[in-house]
């Protein structure tokens, strides 16, 4: 139970700094008979936001726990900035900020005390901790609630505190498990801005979420997982290139159908309250051209918008394929 040489927090001299970011290669992890993760690959490069997307029970949280160096993979390798968590525990911990899906706050402590304790646990220089904590409280907009016990904070505020806790030691890799759940729309927009800002600072950010429309806006790339496997890894640009479904509603429903048929487009009638159709369009130019045609045909276009986000389209295709 003593501090081993690898736990002192100082990387071995002469060590070559590896590729920045976090990478998991062919990781596998089972709990007894449950194969939570069978075969997953993930690469989150520095300076980018990587979305981890998959249905409930796909193994997202297990993968994040392995990336956070809390669980050891049964097989496969994980590197954080080129370091293996098994052998460079302390060095890796310093680089990782982890925000769990369970909030886990010390309820009787104040936000300021929680962040101060975390600073101590990360062995930040004692003199710098108060200043760092104040800066962090301001960043997550908890400065005016800093001296309230954490139990009186709302879920969204606790979520922000949890994010502050993950950022206190200025990690280079940020692992966020469902960070947007429980946040009001304003806080979501803010979180989005914050994550973009952190990525711009050169951090590698992994975000798992169900709210795919959010991820569309902030993710540079996405890793889709299902049933313990990586199903696809693509960039948001790739996802957009494979087409996007648009929903069109018109006051003259019959005219809309006639015009689309005349244009020779494949469409689907949605069973909504209004006469809505949806159809796949390959890119923005196609969308602009179709809208122009419909307006000229005078069918009374009420709405014309992407039906789903680019990531959601891939996700739904994925579910359809594996179901």
């Amino acid at each position, binding site marked *: 139970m003593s*501090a081993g040489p690898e736990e002192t927090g100082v990387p071995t001299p002469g060590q070559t700094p590896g590729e920045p970011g976090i990478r998991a290669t062919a990781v596998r992890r089972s709990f007894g008979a449950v194969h939570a993760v069978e075969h997953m690959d993930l690469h989150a490069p520095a300076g980018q936001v990587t979305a981890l997307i998959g249905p409930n029970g796909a193994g997202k949280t297990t993968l994040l*726990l392995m990336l956070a160096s*809390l669980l050891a993979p049964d097989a496969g390798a994980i590197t954080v900035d080129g370091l293996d*968590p098994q052998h460079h*525990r302390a060095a890796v911990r*310093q680089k990782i900020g982890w925000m769990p899906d369970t909030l886990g706050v010390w309820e009787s402590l104040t936000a300021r005390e929680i962040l101060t304790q975390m600073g101590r*646990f990360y062995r930040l*220089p004692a003199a710098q901790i108060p200043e760092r904590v104040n800066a962090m409280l301001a960043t997550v907009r908890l400065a005016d609630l800093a001296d309230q016990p954490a139990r009186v904070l709302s879920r969204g505020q606790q979520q922000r505190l949890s994010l502050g806790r993950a950022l206190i030691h*200025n990690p280079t890799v940020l692992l966020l498990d469902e960070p947007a759940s429980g946040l009001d729309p304003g806080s979501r927009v803010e979180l989005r801005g914050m994550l973009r800002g952190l990525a711009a600072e050169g951090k590698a950010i992994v975000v798992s979420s169900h709210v795919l429309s959010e991820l569309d806006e902030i993710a540079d790339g996405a890793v889709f997982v299902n049933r313990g496997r990586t199903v696809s890894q693509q960039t948001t640009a790739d996802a957009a290139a494979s087409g996007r479904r648009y929903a069109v509603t018109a006051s003259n429903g019959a005219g809309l159908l006639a015009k689309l048929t005349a244009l020779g487009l494949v469409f689907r009638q949605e069973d909504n309250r209004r006469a809505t159709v949806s159809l796949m369009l390959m890119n923005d130019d196609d969308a602009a051209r179709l809208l122009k045609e419909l307006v000229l045909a005078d069918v009374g276009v009420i709405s014309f918008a992407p039906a789903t986000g680019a990531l959601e389209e891939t996700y739904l295709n994925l579910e359809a394929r594996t179901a």
Partner: protein
Amino acid sequence: MSSATELSPSPTHAAGGYFAGIRDVVVLELKQRLRSRGWYIMLAIWFVLTGIVTALTWAGWESSRQARLSYMPSDASLAMNDGPGSVIFEVVLAFVLLFALLVAPALSANAINGDRAGGTLAILQVTLLTPGQILWGKFCAAWIAALGFLVASTPFLIIGVSLGGMTPGHVLVALLMLAVELAVVCGLGVGISALAGRPLFSIVVTYLTVAGLVFGTLIAFGLGVSLSQGTMMANQAQYRDYVANPSQTMPEYECEGPMREVPVIRTERVAWMLAMNPFVVVADAIPYPDRTGGTYGFSGGTMESISQGARHALAGPEASQPCANGKTQPGYLAQTTPLWPLGLGLQVALAGLMLWLGWRSLRTPAKKLARGTRIA
């Protein structure tokens, strides 16, 4: 936001850093404990109960002294010379130990799996803290919280001393041994809480372990005794008339006749089980006044009787069988063959084993998880 270089961990000395980490965990734990009202309520109940027990013991001793004085006025000096101190001290000590054994599991046995259930353990595990620092920090915090109860009962132990018969040394030794027993139970509790999935389960298991030490050791000793039959050489004890021995300074019997093989119980073979009993450990560690040269009519208190009983068991029939090897036996065993180091050693070994197993289960990246537990 500051840059990474400013925030690199302070280059603390490895050993100093290890203890600083423990201290940080203790601070975190104690802040939470001191802000929960339950601890203060328990402390108040403890204080009041110990006070009531002390008052009743004193009142009981006082009324029996009054009764003796009215019955035998000439014997007043004899009744006065012992004082109530010894009795109050021992009753309070036994009571405090009993309550300490009841309170310590509640303070320690959810230390780790309670945090696991609340999702806060993984928050600690993902930092630079090592499993040992988390475990020792949790242990120290539970122990400090338990020591609060000991501090609350100190006034009554001091009352026991000040009423006569005992020295401050007795209080110090008694408090020290009580503190050590609390540490043993807290160690068991924290270790078990790291192993068990649910707080309720680990609390029950810790209580059962403590019950095992208090009652199980007695039962095991009793069963063991019946399996430890043996023989030894002894001759006949001839008991004197009580009148012939008014001073009570000589043995009550003489040994006569031929040596014969007699059946005896080899209690020394199973005495180590008795030694693990917390009451035996505390009772045996307290230095009692030397009575070996004194009266044969032994008049010590509860704890002293426990100590003497256990020492007789450890000494075996050689020391307790009348006329063993043709010699008379002293009625009172000297404090030269202490039993408590053996018992305490066994207890510490047990608590150490639990803590070590607990430490194994806290290591990250975790390879194996206990059934039904999540790391976060």
